[in-house]
């Protein structure tokens, strides 16, 4: 690791100010610190977001629940359970206890790893990403592998989730990292079903419109029969071919529907 400065602001305003001159945000550090240890990143100054009360916690809002940007996965798994069990269950499946007690929702969706779990929930719920400057709809936020709509120095302060009638996440783990080899998040709202798939595509998390239409008509595993995704844009690596991932999209979506009940 190269040496670096660490700033620990107590307010969002101080954090924004500290980030203004090229510093980098540090949340749970579960992605950033390993890259720094390998000397693949040399941020110079880190601005910790975990000591800012405004960025912490799970609460009920007007149109669903609001999760502070620096809320660890373990807190979401525990405290979102009574409002949005499907989301809490997803948070509880991320990594291991150490990762869940450190890693945060803001860090996860800012990083937008193509195999991460949260992006599926955020996109699959049609959530809204709140930053220090604006609100961004999930559909406009995820721009591809490790790419988001965030500007330089922009901070995810919260994520607002509308709460569906039913929802579930089905994750098939990559055997080594236990990130999602393919994960499917399905959410049934009064006005239709959303399906988001993570882990599979070279373009990162995506929605599956055909499955959404079929499930909106009938929220049953059978409704997905015959639906397939093309393997063209799927990730192919040591852990699975593009065809395998395309196939798993169908299987995991079906299992998510079954789990949602």
């Amino acid at each position: 690791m190269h040496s670096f400065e660490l700033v620990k602001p107590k307010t969002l305003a101080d954090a924004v100010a500290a980030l203004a001159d090229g510093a980098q945000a540090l949340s749970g550090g579960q992605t950033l610190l390993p890259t720094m240890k390998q000397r693949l990143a040399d941020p110079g100054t880190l601005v910790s977001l975990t000591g800012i009360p405004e960025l912490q916690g799970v609460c009920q809002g007007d149109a669903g629940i609001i999760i502070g940007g620096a809320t660890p996965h373990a807190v979401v798994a525990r405290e979102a359970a009574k409002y949005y069990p499907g989301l809490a269950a997803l948070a509880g499946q991320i990594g291991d206890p150490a990762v869940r007690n450190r890693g945060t929702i803001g860090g996860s969706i800012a990083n937008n790893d193509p195999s991460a779990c949260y992006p599926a929930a955020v996109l699959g719920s049609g959530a809204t990403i709140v930053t220090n400057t604006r609100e961004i709809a999930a559909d406009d936020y995820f721009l591809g592998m490790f790419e988001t709509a965030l500007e330089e120095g922009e901070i995810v302060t919260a994520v607002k989730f509308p709460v569906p009638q039913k929802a579930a996440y089905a994750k098939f783990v990559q055997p080594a990292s236990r990130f999602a080899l393919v994960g499917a998040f399905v959410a049934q709202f009064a006005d239709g079903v959303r399906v988001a798939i993570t882990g599979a595509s070279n373009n990162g998390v995506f929605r599956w419109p055909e499955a959404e239409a079929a499930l909106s008509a009938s929220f049953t595993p059978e409704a997905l029969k015959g639906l397939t995704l093309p393997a063209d844009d799927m990730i192919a690596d040591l852990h699975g071919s593009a065809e395998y991932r395309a196939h798993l999209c169908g299987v995991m979506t079906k299992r998510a529907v079954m789990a949602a009940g």
Partner: protein
Amino acid sequence: MPKDGGIGDSTKRREDIRFLTGKGRYTDDINLRGQAYAYFLRSEVANGRINGIDAKAALAMPGVLAVLTGADFAGMGGNPAGWLINSRNGEPMKEPKRPVLAHGKVRHVGDAYAVVIAETYQQARDAAAAVEADITELPAVVDMAQALADSTNLVHDEIGTNQCFDWGWIEDNRAAVEEAFKNAPHVTTLELTNNRLVPNAMEPRASLADYDAGTGDYKLYTTSQNPHLHRLLIAAFVMGMPENKLTVIAPDVGGGFGSKIYHYGEEAAVLHAAKVLNRPVKWVAERSESFLSDAHGRDHVTKIELATTKDGQFLALRSETMANVGAYLSNFSTATPTFLHGTLMAGPYKTPLVYVNVKTVFTNTAPVDAYRGAGRPEATFSIERIIDKCARELGLDQAEIRRKNLLTPDQFPYTTPVGLVYDTGNYQATLDKMTELADLAGFEARRAESAKRGKLRGLGLSTWIEACGIAPSNLVGVLGARVGLFDAATVRVNATGNISVMTGAHSHGQGHETVFAQIVAEQLGIPATSVEIVHGDTSKIPFGMGSYGSRSLAVAGSAMTKAVDKIIAKGKKIAAHMLEASEDDIEFKDGNFSVAGTDKAKSFGEIAFSAYVPHNYPLESLEPGLEETAFYDPGNFTYPAGAYACEVEVDPDTGKVEIAAFTCADDFGNVMNPMIVNGQVHGGVGQGIGQALLENTSYDENGQLLTGSFMDYAMPRADDVPFYKVDHSCNTPCTHNPLGVKGCGEAGAIGSPPAVVNAVIDALHRGGHTHVSHINMPVSPARVWAAINSK
């Protein structure tokens, strides 16, 4: 009922208290005054010519003390291969020099070519980035078949080939085996790979070197399974100094699995640097360095054939293997695919004719060497997979085909067609025990229940044998070993009756400190708490060969009991004097020396005291003191064997395999501590399940390691393994060592992989996917799914 703390008692491991409370003392816990830190520069290309290394800028950086390169070590000896193997045509193997640091050429990603020494580790790392290495990348040799076929692209130009040797075992049997195949009513053929593994000991390799300019003595603290072997290799072969000028200390070591048997260049590099700088120098590997530079395991590509009668009687077995040795010959790398593999190809069976051919191949990958089981897992996997396929082709039951061909108890001692003599065994007994414990009779009901949940259930068996307790020196000498494989112990009875045992074995997780103490306590009739086991320091222990090949108890333990026998013999002499009796009338029992038929007796403690305070002592005929050393060279290998059953559930939609049950019935000879033996079996089977389902080392065609971290290299986790059923009640004690023990450290890793893969294939067949005859390890979800859908 075993005595408390005696032989057969499940005494809790005394060393665990210090390990679990953070009081273990590992190499990195040791810090010497004024120590500097080393960081190694490692090749980023698999094959490259070093045109020059410019360290000027690095040397000018803060804290930097020195930058050493391959040129600084060019005058030193090579790190040798421990076994000389001859090719079928009588030619000796090709043995290119393995230098301390790469010089002229780098030969695998991770090959160290320079070392930066600085005041702090961070400074060394920072400076390493400023070292300018001009290296021209050359095309990499990665695939073994291609390496053999293409003699224009060589890992070592000076040997003119990528083949190390082409070995036949036993060459004289080749023609007879060929003839048997020609005439056989049925022949089963299978091509398979034994996947390459990274050992991944929990503690990475580490070394701390110290040099005393006053005496010229070197001291090396290092992660070693065998400190004397390290001393021998470093002093006599590489650095060229008298052995008595080097002390090697292997303190607590966090696992080895083979990878810490070997001498690696980093050790000689820090020793030399300590002398050059006249300061202690420490190096601790980062996990990524372990992936790149620890000796890997397995990596065989094999074609195996079994000739049988129509009803499944084995007539002959033949295999052709390519074994990867990587870029350099690591110390055991030539023995592992040959004498630890070819000699095991008879398995526990009556197969009358066996022929094994092994070609070892240099590639631009990390060196490959012995890893838990070493050669025997490869042999067992080939045999147990071909038997499984044969049974399926002939429509025979998996247990029946084995039972029909297993050696029977009346056949021992049995000379195999591949040169070993099995002293004893009862393979039917372990098979019966496993059948009962695994409830094979109830399998169909369990399968039906799994099917209701949409899962394909399968059953896989493996009846395995191994040769361990390595090894009779005269025999391995004939086979090409350049070392002896005896072991040694010194038993020092202190004046107040407590005991220090200095053993040549090294414990890096096995629990020797507990078990060895139990054995001495039992022999001497004293509490185990009075016995302390000392290991790992060449300045304290007698010359021993260390721990690997399930040899600690069978070889070093035997030396220890022999030394205790000498203590008892001397004690009798002292007692005879004190009790004014004839030595022949002295009996030793339960810690007391007594005159037969009388109530005259002296306790062990009294005898010890009198040996050190020899006031009433036969000084004219007997030396004072009570300390004895014994060296023990085994008369034969030991042959643990067992029968394993694995049940899996396959999810046909995803290809995911879950181990539903795993049962082991093992014959380890006499068992000294059942709890520790269970632990060894659990760990070994866990590693075997890891190999079978998860672990894979993958290089791309440029020789880049694709699985260089735990993000891509899948280790088994607790929830990947089931609750095991383990039994070791069907014991046939080893006939040629004093404890009757056979060794249990590698068994699980040897017997389990074929049981798992056989179970997966069985599940697929029962589920109607009868076109799948084999899946290479690791049997990952993606591979299972692809196999199911390969029609």
